[in-house]
């Protein structure tokens, strides 16, 4: 496989494009220059670090190290899920739900692909397991955070409807069903839109990366298709688990609506 290797000095010129954005922000008084600078520095540090971490993990090929890296990725994903929600559940529940759902979806789908389609040796080889998990987690996280946000805000908004259904003898899931449906639709939609637009509007990053690294486009497409199927499955599973779990936490064993478990909007 032949590809054009880059040195750090080759990145100076492209980085000037970001500097140009900063100059534009100052000129047009957008007040984005500080955020842009912080985000750029963070991106560089994070990516360089992850490069070295992955190099270590690929050399070690250890189940323990791979599992630890996966766990850290899941924890960051669950934190991101919480941060993205306008209205969230109180206390540790919201972190637990986010972490549980991303772990369930990301873990299940990654294991599925490792054990059935890719079959690396050993099965947990970090060169395959971690990039796959990362891509699945990134998309699952979006679905889970959107789904939970829609569920919590929908239940708070439709409180009277939920309460009336419960008062008439409906179960908690009968009462929450319209909001659960809306939340699931909202959680799935970015994935469906992404699948519909892929190849026409955008060339996905992983496929582009493989092509740049010298892989034949048709082979890169097969990998991309595999990833898209896994992402769709992971997002569906994660969003479903998060929304059903969210509905469970927003009610109690006596089928009572528990809005007291939602954090006030201003503290979100």
């Amino acid at each position, binding site marked *: 496989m032949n590809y054009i290797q880059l040195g750090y000095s080759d990145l100076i010129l492209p980085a000037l494009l970001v500097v140009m954005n900063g100059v534009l922000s100052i000129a047009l008084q957008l007040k984005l220059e500080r955020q842009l600078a912080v985000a750029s520095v963070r991106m560089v540090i994070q990516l360089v670090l992850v490069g070295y971490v992955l190099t270590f993990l690929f050399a070690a090929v250890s189940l323990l190290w791979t599992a630890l890296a996966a766990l850290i990725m899941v924890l960051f994903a669950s934190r991101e899920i919480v941060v993205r929600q306008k209205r969230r559940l109180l206390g540790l529940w919201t972190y637990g739900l986010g972490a549980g759902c991303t772990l369930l979806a990301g873990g299940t789908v990654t294991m599925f692909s490792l054990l059935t389609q890719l079959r690396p040796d050993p099965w947990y080889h970090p060169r395959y397991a971690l990039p796959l998990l990362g891509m699945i987690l990134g998309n699952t996280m979006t679905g889970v955070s959107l789904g939970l946000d829609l569920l919590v805000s929908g239940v708070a908004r439709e409180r*009277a409807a939920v309460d009336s259904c419960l008062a008439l003898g409906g179960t908690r899931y009968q009462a929450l069903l319209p909001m659960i449906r809306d939340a699931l639709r909202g959680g799935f939609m970015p994935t469906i839109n992404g699948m519909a637009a892929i190849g026409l509007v955008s060339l996905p990053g992983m496929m582009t990366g493989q092509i740049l690294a010298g892989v034949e486009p048709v082979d890169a497409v097969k990998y991309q298709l595999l990833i898209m199927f896994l992402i769709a499955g992971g997002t569906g599973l994660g969003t479903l688990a998060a929304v059903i779990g969210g509905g469970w936490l927003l009610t109690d064993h006596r089928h009572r609506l528990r809005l007291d478990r939602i954090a006030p909007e201003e503290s979100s």
Partner: protein
Amino acid sequence: MLTVRELTRLQISASFQLRDGECIALQGPSGAGKTLLLRAIADLDPNEGSVELDGKPRESMPAPAWRRQVTYVATEPGWWADTVRDHFAAWDQAMAVAERLGLPSSCGAWPIRRLSTGERQRLGLVRALLLDSRVLLLDEPTSALDAASTAAVETIVAERRSTGTGVIWSTHDSAQARRIGSRLFTMASGGRIEERQL
């Protein structure tokens, strides 16, 4: 018979019995806790104490089954579908009750968003009446109704009482409390309940 013992929810605390066919009129200033009490009996909010129906504790049955027996009707009922008809499993039965409350038979097709407060109140009551509950917990059920509609609601609830349904009816209207109540409870701002002479 509904038996309430040391039922506690926030500032309210209550103990009383409601016999079959009896109607307790519940009065008190706004914010005294009338709604809290009715919702606590229906087990719609976390609460402490004991509530029994014919000696059977509510915890011995699933909450949805309890609420089909002991049904709370909110002052402003909520709606989860687009049209009136979508909220009823048996629209023919519902229509017969709705007509008795002064609503036209065509109201099934009405979009919920165009209903007036009074129409919502009457249709909310129709939903509860169709359950044939043992106890109705009515939270100011006629607060948005004119005299004719109020009379229709009082008549239909009285008919239910004659078949054994117990009723707790919260109202700010003292004349109504005397008309519908077989007993009168007043709730002070501290959440304490006292029985008064009708």
